[in-house]
């Protein structure tokens, strides 16, 4: 293939595995057995809670194993207390299809920009690296982050809160890439395809589209680095789309094909999958029907305590430092408040360094729990657009866009 990957051999392996069925599994690649020395319990309502901690994935440290193939790896919660940027080797991983290239040759990889443009261009990585370099801190969050907390429970990847991460992305403006090809008048959307492929040949290849004005807004990027290093393969090496403020479903990994469309994209992954109820907070009543569905889009504010776990004991009548992270979604963090009485009263927290409006922002607060007993700590964020976290959870059948105010029950003694 011109894109410089050893995809054909991998595809062959997958096809052979398919033919062999269950009997052939495990013999063609490394086995996970023996690699999982420990487990972790996620506090999901009704369970099951237990997950393996795995160190078996390339360029990754300890991760919560949600699924081996295609990989779903969750960032352990303790990582978020260590800093505002999530380390690459513990940045969460989510793939839709199991045919993922294991090798990419930077000398032969090509990015094809075509469709409703003046001229098709094939860019090498050297071409991309030579373009004006930009950088931006931004949160990448799975649409279904925290799905495991939905009640009633819904099917899907049963994530706790670790299907998100924050990185400083380095790359080029998508606008500059599109300008190399020259977008023709009448363009309506831009569609992105990566090197991953379905196992079943007639299944829908994973592609996502953005409106043309969004794609050319000067913020959407093609990143070749995160946190100063080239992307891990599982996070989209060599090029990943960065769509600041929008859910990660749009952040196509291993982007090799950019197609400018003069008609709205009708492919499955844009039109049908990843849709939400067109209601406030994408909220519906379980069983509700006849709701208009729209593609998921911008993120909403969230905030978390990172240094105190549920069930922890804090000293009574003495100050304790509580800290964590917040993000505003598609605008910056305006304020973070902390409550020690389950949300009846609130105190403003102190905000850490502003790394940009799409970044995690650290916060901290000194709290004093007056006497021995049980307390409910809560944290809430309001973004620069005035949008605040709600005090009741939203619900929808896909488990998307959870952003309720989180509560952590602790004991003072």
């Amino acid at each position, binding site marked *: 293939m011109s894109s410089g990957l050893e995809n054909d051999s991998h595809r062959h392996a997958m096809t052979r595995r398919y033919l062999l069925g269950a009997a052939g599994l495990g013999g063609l690649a490394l*086995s996970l057995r023996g690699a999982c020395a420990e487990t972790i319990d996620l506090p999901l309502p009704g369970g099951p809670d237990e997950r393996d901690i795995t160190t078996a994935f390339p360029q990754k440290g300890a991760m919560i194993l949600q699924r*081996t193939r295609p990989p779903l790896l969750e960032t352990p919660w303790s990582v978020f207390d260590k800093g505002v940027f999530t380390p690459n080797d513990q940045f969460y991983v989510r793939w839709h299809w199991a045919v993922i290239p*294991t090798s990419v040759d*930077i000398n032969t990889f090509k990015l094809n920009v075509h469709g409703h443009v003046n001229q098709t261009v094939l860019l090498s990585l050297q071409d991309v690296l030579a373009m004006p370099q930009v*950088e931006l801190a931004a949160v990448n969050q799975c649409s279904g982050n925290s799905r495991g907390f939905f009640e009633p429970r819904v099917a899907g990847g049963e994530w706790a809160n670790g299907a998100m991460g924050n990185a400083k992305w380095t790359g080029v403006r998508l606008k500059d890439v599109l300008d190399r090809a020259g977008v023709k008048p009448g363009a309506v959307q831009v569609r992105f395809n990566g090197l991953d492929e379905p196992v079943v040949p007639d299944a829908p290849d994973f592609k996502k589209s953005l409106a043309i004005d969004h794609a050319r807004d000067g913020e959407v990027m093609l990143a070749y680095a995160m946190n100063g290093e080239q992307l891990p393969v599982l996070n989209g090496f*060599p090029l990943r789309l960065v769509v600041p403020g929008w859910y990660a479903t749009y952040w196509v990994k291993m982007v090799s094909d950019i197609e400018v469309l003069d008609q709205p994209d009708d492919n499955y992954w844009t039109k049908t999958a990843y849709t939400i109820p067109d209601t406030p907070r994408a909220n519906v009543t379980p069983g509700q029907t006849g709701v208009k569905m729209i593609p998921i889009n911008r993120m909403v504010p969230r905030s978390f305590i990172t240094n105190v776990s549920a069930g922890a004991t804090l000293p009574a009548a003495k100050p304790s430092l509580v800290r964590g992270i917040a993000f505003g979604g598609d605008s910056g963090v305006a304020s973070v408040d902390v409550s020690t009485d389950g949300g009846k009263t609130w105190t403003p927290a102190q905000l850490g360094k502003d790394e940009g409006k799409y970044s995690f922002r650290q916060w901290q607060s000194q709290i004093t729990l007056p006497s021995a007993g049980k307390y409910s700590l809560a944290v809430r964020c309001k973004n620069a657009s005035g949008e605040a976290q709600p005090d009741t959870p939203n619900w929808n059948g896909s488990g998307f866009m959870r952003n309720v105010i989180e509560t952590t029950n602790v004991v003072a003694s």
Partner: protein
Amino acid sequence: MSRTMFVVAFVFSAACAHLAANAVPFTLKSESVNFPDSDKTFPGPGADAINNNCLSCHSAGMVLTQPALSKDAWTAEVHKMIANYKAPIDPNDVDAIVAYLVRTKGK
């Protein structure tokens, strides 16, 4: 005049990914990795249909960590795999797959 310049500069920076200050040319190196596989299968009696039909596209782990769901929900999941994701499931096995899921993960 200088105030106007400041405002213009601020608006520009707020609307764009920042041009990297002191940008140094970035270099990339080729990558070659291996992904682990799972040898986990669906356990227990009545698992032949789900093991034979489902493991080519995805490993068992995520299914085994699903919450208890209704028979309607499991039926919908299996049919979503067939209709949307083109899972090559033998039509004669659909009932047995749903039955396994309802028996082990039902409510």
